[in-house]
């Protein structure tokens, strides 16, 4: 009993002691008091502002293009980044909203003043200090800049993308008169009026022509608010109105026809009170709806309110067009949909070549005899790789953008199941017996193992960083998996990449081969003898200045020879005068004579004579094999017997089981080249059916993947930014001495709105970043032409960013994420000290990109850095771009604060307990 009393007492105390969590209540709740002349017409001023239309603006056609050049793929009105500036509380979860809150109201009072539930009471609001204590924020100009700083995406699309902040602040100023006195909102129509918001619950989205947004953007939605303007005050005199127009019945007759006065001329003003027809069942039957009171207004109905006024004629036809809100949106010209073939597989027991098409989210089936596409099956976003069960009855396709694998009945040509996998799945393969399906998750660096029959998830294996492709040994005993990223082995340490060896009988990792000096390991294939496998690689010399390109060895490209005894050799495919940029995939002929390697940067296939290659290695000394051959540009002449040109950016390559032909996926030509393996020539090209015209975006994509821009074609943009992301490497770029000012590579995903560029923030535009600067410090060649640069930059801005894996908008944060959010936004330390603004996370990392786009000294300058001020990086999907800080010296997010923030210069964090820091990181991963 005693224990029971104690427990009750404890709970009661806990409830009393827990600070109330403020929630968003919506502007309407604010407007209940902040209304009327004696309150400075604050609510009406907001209703008249662009802020109130912020959300509705997202359904404008131009928003689509803005989304595209922001690297986003979703609908603007759903994208968290768009909502970050076009709605209120975008980073809050569903528990943070009162039922009175409506996202459709755009940028509301609480977007600037903070969630209002705890300070909205009259008793609190009358005491400013108390209100601030309860969460009221009084923002300054900097706060506006979080959204109103110039955004490349908006500049590229809108006519007037920027806002003069000083002017805008004056425009939205809403000072409170002293003394202030609230005027109640006038009554709405009540009765059977249900309000436009109720209509908007259904009449939204493209399926309904965004009708609610069209109304929100129109003058009718502001009809009541406009009565608060000085102009209205002046013009109502002719109606003998002397008091507040917003309260005058004669004004309200035409300025407030809705459930509440503040909605102005709502839907029901024209369509009649909705109570009896607004249900979905009735509305689906127009006759029934009309019988229940739905009015289909004629143009003449406008004349009830809209009359000619002195000096102003009401053009009903023009206005009718202005407010038109058809259910069906006008057709929009679809951008050409390319194919972008990446990887392929021959269906066992058939002549079918299956090709994963990244850009059309599908897999194409090519009849290799007829050399024609015979089917295309839609899979999931960004189809990347394809494999089969040994009997060829089932195909598996990885969908990189949606973290899934499509399971296809190969006979029926139908997707029969979709497997949820890890982050950004790439390579897929089944073992020889068809027991297990292996899926390489390139962003989460792990391998998912499924039962290939039941499709049940079996286990997850730890892979190397950025696992990419798989190859089954001829005896079926083991499977190799390459890794595109080098290991995180410490600041400015030489590269080491892993090839993971899987024991196929147990589906466990049996060994990890470390490939020294290598990165971007992609394709892999076993020699039919089983003596060795070949894997493609880059050898990036990131520890010396990139300007060493002139000496021919900044980035070299070649193969790793993975011997079955575990030893490894490395050879280059470059020649002294011509690089073999981005060796991407490798296939070996069934007789073991040739290995065929694609160079996606140089649009060709190298034919390696395997016997010559192994002879070269075996005849060399240990020292030569370790130090000379891996770096020797002249050795490829000994074993590369031919270089076969193919089309743009060849990626995957497969060899027919009879050894007669090889097939090459020309990713940016939407075709498959056929190589006659007897003649060693490209004998045909199979068109996969993509658009024939080259858009600016596609042109830019081609330039991005081509090594033509670099001296002696040694590398492409893609070499350091594989798939537009990062290679996880810290580079020494400028020729100012070895090790001076090293910088971590940064992702290109969603880059446009994060200017300035470079860690020192010295490049204000992409044009400068990718133009002359690229030429001086990287490519040592003629820069891109104006036209090329324009296309390249456009493509870069459209590189899609994957959805955040730790938080889905509209869902709840985990408890840890929720606690972390509070820490991210906190203003007081654990011991009660006020944190100065610049010591708060959110000061520099403000939503929605979580960057202020300024340079800042966070105490991370090292001895060889020429400055301590660095660009504030954005934090979107920050979890997938380790290492961190300007020079990549923090291997994990934790190290940013546990190691590199001793004096609280990078935010006040040293008072945090370990569990609080864990919570903070859990939240940061959701951004």
């Amino acid at each position: 009993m005693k224990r029971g009393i104690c427990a009750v007492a404890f709970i009661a105390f806990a409830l009393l002691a827990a600070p109330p969590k403020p929630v968003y209540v919506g502007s309407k709740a604010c407007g209940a008091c902040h209304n009327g002349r004696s309150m400075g017409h604050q609510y009406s001023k907001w209703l008249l502002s662009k802020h109130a239309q912020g959300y509705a603006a997202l359904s404008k056609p131009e928003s689509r293009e803005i989304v595209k050049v922001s690297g986003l793929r979703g609908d603007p009105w759903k994208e968290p980044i768009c909502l970050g500036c076009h709605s209120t509380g975008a980073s809050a979860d569903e528990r943070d909203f009162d039922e009175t809150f409506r996202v459709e109201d755009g940028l509301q009072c609480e977007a600037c003043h903070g969630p209002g539930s705890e300070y909205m009471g009259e008793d609190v609001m009358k005491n400013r200090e108390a209100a601030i204590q309860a969460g009221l924020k009084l923002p300054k100009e900097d706060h506006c800049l979080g959204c109103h700083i110039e955004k490349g995406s908006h500049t590229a699309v809108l006519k007037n993308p920027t806002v003069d902040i000083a002017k805008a602040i004056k425009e939205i100023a809403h000072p409170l008169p002293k003394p202030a006195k609230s005027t109640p909102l006038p009554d709405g129509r009540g009765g059977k009026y249900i309000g436009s918001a109720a209509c908007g619950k259904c009449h939204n989205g493209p399926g309904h022509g965004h009708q609610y947004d069209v109304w929100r953007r129109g003058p009718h939605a502001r009809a009541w608010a406009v009565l608060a303007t000085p102009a209205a005050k002046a013009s109502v005199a002719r109606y003998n109105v002397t008091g507040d127009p917003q309260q005058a019945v004669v004004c309200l007759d035409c300025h407030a026809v809705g459930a509440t006065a503040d909605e102005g001329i709502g839907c029901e003003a024209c369509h009649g009170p909705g109570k009896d027809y607004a249900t979905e069942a009735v509305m689906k039957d127009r006759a029934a709806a009309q019988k229940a009171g739905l009015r289909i207004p004629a143009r003449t109905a406008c004349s009830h309110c809209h009359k000619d006024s002195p000096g102003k004629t009401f053009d009903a036809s023009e206005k009718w067009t202005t407010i038109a809100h058809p259910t069906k949106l006008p057709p929009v010209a679809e951008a050409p949909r390319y194919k972008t073939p990446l990887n392929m597989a021959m269906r066992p027991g058939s002549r079918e070549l299956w090709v994963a098409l990244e850009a059309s989210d599908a897999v194409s089936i090519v009849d290799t005899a007829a050399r024609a596409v015979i089917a295309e099956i839609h899979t999931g976003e960004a189809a990347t790789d394809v494999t089969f069960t040994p009997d060829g009855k089932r195909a598996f396709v990885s969908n990189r953008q949606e973290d899934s694998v499509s399971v296809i009945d190969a006979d029926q040509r139908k997707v029969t199941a979709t497997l949820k996998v890890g982050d950004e799945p790439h390579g897929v393969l089944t073992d020889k017996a068809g027991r297990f399906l292996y899926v390489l998750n390139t962003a989460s660096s792990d391998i998912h193992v499924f039962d290939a029959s039941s499709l049940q998830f079996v286990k997850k294996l730890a892979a190397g960083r950025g696992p990419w492709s798989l190859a089954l040994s001829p005896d079926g005993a083991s499977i190799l998996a390459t890794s595109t990223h080098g290991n995180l082995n410490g600041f400015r340490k030489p590269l080491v990449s892993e090839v993971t060896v899987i024991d196929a009988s147990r589906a466990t990792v049996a060994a990890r081969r470390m490939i020294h000096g290598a990165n971007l390991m992609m394709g892999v294939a076993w020699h039919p003898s089983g003596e060795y496998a070949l894997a493609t690689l880059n050898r990036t010399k990131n520890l010396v200045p990139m300007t060493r390109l002139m000496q021919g060895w900044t980035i070299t490209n070649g193969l790793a020879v993975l011997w079955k005894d575990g030893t490894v050799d490395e050879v280059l495919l470059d020649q002294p005068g011509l690089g073999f940029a981005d060796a991407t995939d490798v296939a070996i002929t069934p007789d073991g004579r040739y290995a065929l390697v694609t160079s996606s940067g140089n649009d060709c296939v190298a034919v390696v004579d395997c016997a010559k290659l192994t002879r070269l290695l075996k005849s060399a000394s240990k020292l030569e094999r370790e130090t000379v051959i891996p770096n020797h540009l002249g050795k490829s002449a000994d074993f590369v017997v031919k270089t076969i040109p193919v089309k743009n950016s060849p990626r995957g390559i497969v060899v027919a089981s009879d050894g007669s032909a090889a097939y090459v996926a020309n990713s940016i030509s939407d075709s498959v080249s056929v190589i006659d393996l007897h003649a060693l020539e490209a004998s045909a090209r199979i068109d996969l059916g993509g658009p024939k015209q080259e858009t600016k975006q596609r042109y830019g994509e081609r330039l991005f993947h081509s090594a033509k821009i670099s001296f002696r074609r040694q590398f492409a943009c893609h070499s350091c930014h594989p798939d537009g992301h990062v290679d996880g490497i810290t580079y020494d770029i400028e020729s100012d001495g070895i090790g001076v000012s090293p910088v971590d590579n940064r992702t290109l995903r969603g880059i446009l709105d994060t200017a300035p560029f470079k860690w020192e923030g010295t490049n204000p535009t992409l044009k400068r970043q990718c133009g002359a600067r690229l030429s001086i410090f990287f490519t040592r060649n003629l820069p891109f032409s104006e036209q090329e640069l324009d296309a390249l930059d456009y493509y870069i801005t459209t590189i899609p960013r994957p959805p955040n894996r730790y938080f889905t908008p509209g869902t709840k944060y985990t408890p840890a994420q929720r606690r972390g959010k509070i820490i991210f936004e906190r203003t007081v330390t654990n011991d009660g000290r006020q944190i100065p603004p610049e010591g708060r996370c959110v000061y520099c990392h403000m939503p929605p990109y979580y960057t202020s786009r300024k340079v800042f000294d966070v105490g991370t300058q090292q001895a060889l850095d020429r400055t301590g001020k660095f660009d504030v990086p954005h934090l979107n999907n920050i979890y997938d771009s380790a290492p961190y800080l300007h020079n990549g010296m923090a291997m994990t997010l934790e190290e940013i604060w546990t190691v590199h923030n001793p004096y609280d210069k990078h935010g006040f964090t040293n008072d945090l307990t370990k569990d609080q820091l864990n919570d903070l990181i859990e939240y940061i991963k959701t951004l």
Partner: protein
Amino acid sequence: MKFLTTTALLLIPAVACAQAPAAKKLPYVYTKWKQFTKADGLPNDHIFAVKSDGDRLWVGTEGGLALIDKKTGKVKSWTEKDGLPFRVVTGIDIDPKTGDVWLALFGGGLARFSAGRFDHWHQLNSGLVNDVVYGVAVENNNVWAATTAGASRMNMVTGEWTIFTEKNAPMEEIWNYGVHYRDGKVHLAVWGSGVLEYDIATERWKDYLDPDAEMEIDLYRDDGIVHVITTGANYVDKVLWVSTYFGVCRYDGRNWRAFYNMDSGIPSDFNNNLRARSGNEAWFATDKGLGGIMDAATNTWVAYTRDPKSNTGKAIVSRDKTVLETVEMGLNLPHNYIIAIDTDGNDIFVGTAKGLAWGIGDGYYAGVKERPRIITENRSKAK
């Protein structure tokens, strides 16, 4: 009253009958032992952790990690120069799905040894609460670490770290000595806070404390855990076994049973660790030898000790405090200070302060049974 008397009278011969044959029944005694020390390739003779994995035996020492091939007896070892993130390995567990080996590093955090690669999590590069890690346990997609500043759990899928301390668990003290997972429950042995049980399905904690709350004496016997300074907890067959510095105990979900040196065959009340083989058999790492309760129902023990003067060992079989058999043997434990134990199949592996002992369980049987007295003297030096 009449009924009770009659019942009692009827029960007397039944009990006598049950006891008579039980007295002849004896437990299995390990008489065949192998020893491994630095001379055999171990990095150090202070053995802090042992974990059997089929044909392989992982050994954590004060100076590194070792792997013994059970078939060949060959020893392979890793020290810091081989990539082991920290030399003192105090706990080992194996992910049953992947075969990855997880290591508790005493001062170095947590490591995963996967096919030759060491991955390292510590308090600076991860959410691990403290680098002084005593024990590690793999639970489904999570790895638990018992540290000197609380327990940490890492979700291997999401990478999320959760810290359990007095803030969010009934952990009066935060010095975690041991962690064990089995059958949907994680058990933490906490120095000064008894045993904490975390139910995976409900995500709820339950604490096992000494209800009499006396630190120096076990005031009310079998009222709960014998002492809150616990060193290990194993949950097998729905039975919880607990080792402490002041005796050991067993909890079957209804009744607690304490075992002390004064009234059982356990060599000492000072216990560093334990390994439960079943709900009826558990092994305890004491400072004075190895104690195995072979049949909990009859309180039948076998205590293995080594005479440091003669370098010979013996096993004493006892029931309650009555010695039933003494088996002399030449070789058993390299040292009487026992720190770690594991069992696998019929065999037992014992980490001591001076090397590893491997008891080969040829003919092992569980519980007790009638058998001739063992007169074997094992003088094998085979390793």
